[in-house]
């Protein structure tokens, strides 16, 4: 094989590698959110963010419209301050609410935005007032047990104290 043939084969090889890297970076990883030129920021405060992570999707009606940019603890309110980067083409009425939801039983947590009815839209860096925290399984179970214990009254002290654990 001549030198030209070898060079072409190596060219094909390197090209394959680049295509593979492009596939890994764009199709199989979230590079497409990189840059952030055409997004605006909203802030939402949650009593409990649960297992929400940075770069988690922000969805409205199930459609991904943005990502979580940062999660910090607000030291005055003692609430989790979540910065959302939302696609500039998507505007929400200024009474829209944010909830932390879970995709599937074991899936990742994401933020769901429920659009409101006002005519005015959120401006960049606005705060989303109405928020609903992540569902914490322990709280749910203890609520359930407390309500069970309350329903049962106090016929047997042993069952009630067992339920409060």
């Amino acid at each position: 094989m001549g030198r030209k043939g070898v060079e072409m084969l190596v060219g094909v090889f390197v090209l394959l590698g680049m295509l593979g890297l492009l596939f890994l970076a764009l199709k199989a990883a979230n590079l497409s959110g990189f840059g952030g030129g055409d997004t605006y920021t909203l802030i939402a405060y949650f009593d409990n963010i649960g297992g929400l992570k940075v770069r988690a999707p922000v969805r409205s009606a199930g459609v991904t419209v943005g990502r979580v940019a940062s999660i910090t603890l607000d030291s005055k309110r003692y609430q989790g301050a979540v910065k959302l980067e939302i696609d500039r083409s998507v505007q929400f009425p200024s009474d829209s609410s944010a909830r932390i939801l879970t995709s599937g039983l074991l899936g990742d947590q994401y933020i769901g935005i429920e659009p409101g009815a006002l005519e005015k839209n959120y401006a960049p860096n606005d705060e989303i007032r109405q928020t609903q925290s992540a569902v914490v399984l322990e709280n749910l179970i203890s609520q359930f047990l407390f309500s069970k214990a309350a329903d049962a009254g106090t016929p047997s002290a042993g069952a009630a104290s067992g339920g409060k654990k």
Partner: protein
Amino acid sequence: MTNPVTRLGAATLEVLRVLGHHATLFAALVRACGAAFRRPHLIVAQVHALGNLSVLIVVASGMAVGFVLALQLYYTLVRYGATDSLGLIVNLSLTRELGPVLAALLFAGRAGTSLTAEIGLMKAGEQLAALDMMALDPVERILAPRFIGGIIAMPILAILFSTVGILAAYVLAVLLIGVDAGNFWSIMHSGVDAWRDVGNGLVKSVVFGLICTFVALYQGYEAEPTPKGVSEATTRGVVVASLATLIMDFVLTAMMFSTPAG
């Protein structure tokens, strides 16, 4: 002569001697790289020999690993109703660990052995000495193009391994078993970070390429110039390169992924 203290001292000196030889050859190689880039056709020929000719085995192994990973994960995940996360797990394990490491092990076996045998036989046939006689530096002419070629070829092979593995998992999980295609891609998409996961995997594969190529070249260069010496050097080259890759993988993983995501 054979008292334990003497033997301990001799062993220590031997370790230091080997380390010193490694360091000397490495320094000479790095110094020769500049000159090697002036003859790019030599590097291109080596990328072909080390990279192109390894594509088949790497793609075949990547496909096999992708199939097996997807199949085993499916049987486990289906119990918890979490089969949608299959793509994410396959992608993370391939791009972070399995792609670079398995491609490096294959590279050491497929390309490293040929390097060691080639250099060792050149040495046994006194071709390296002949080059030296003609005032041509064998490190610059013979070793450096192979070294650069290996470092270029290895990351590409690792990327191909991961890509083919993910596509194979897609074929098995989505097309054959019937996992939902949208969830397969979207959960993978939101869970894999281009810089943290793909980028670090790429850094790993470059480091492994450097290790495997250097070990193979060193073993060939320092081989005893006899048929037995060359065969022993080839075997030692694969063993050392594989062990070094696995140890280095642990070190790199501890450095790159010690902090949790997000």
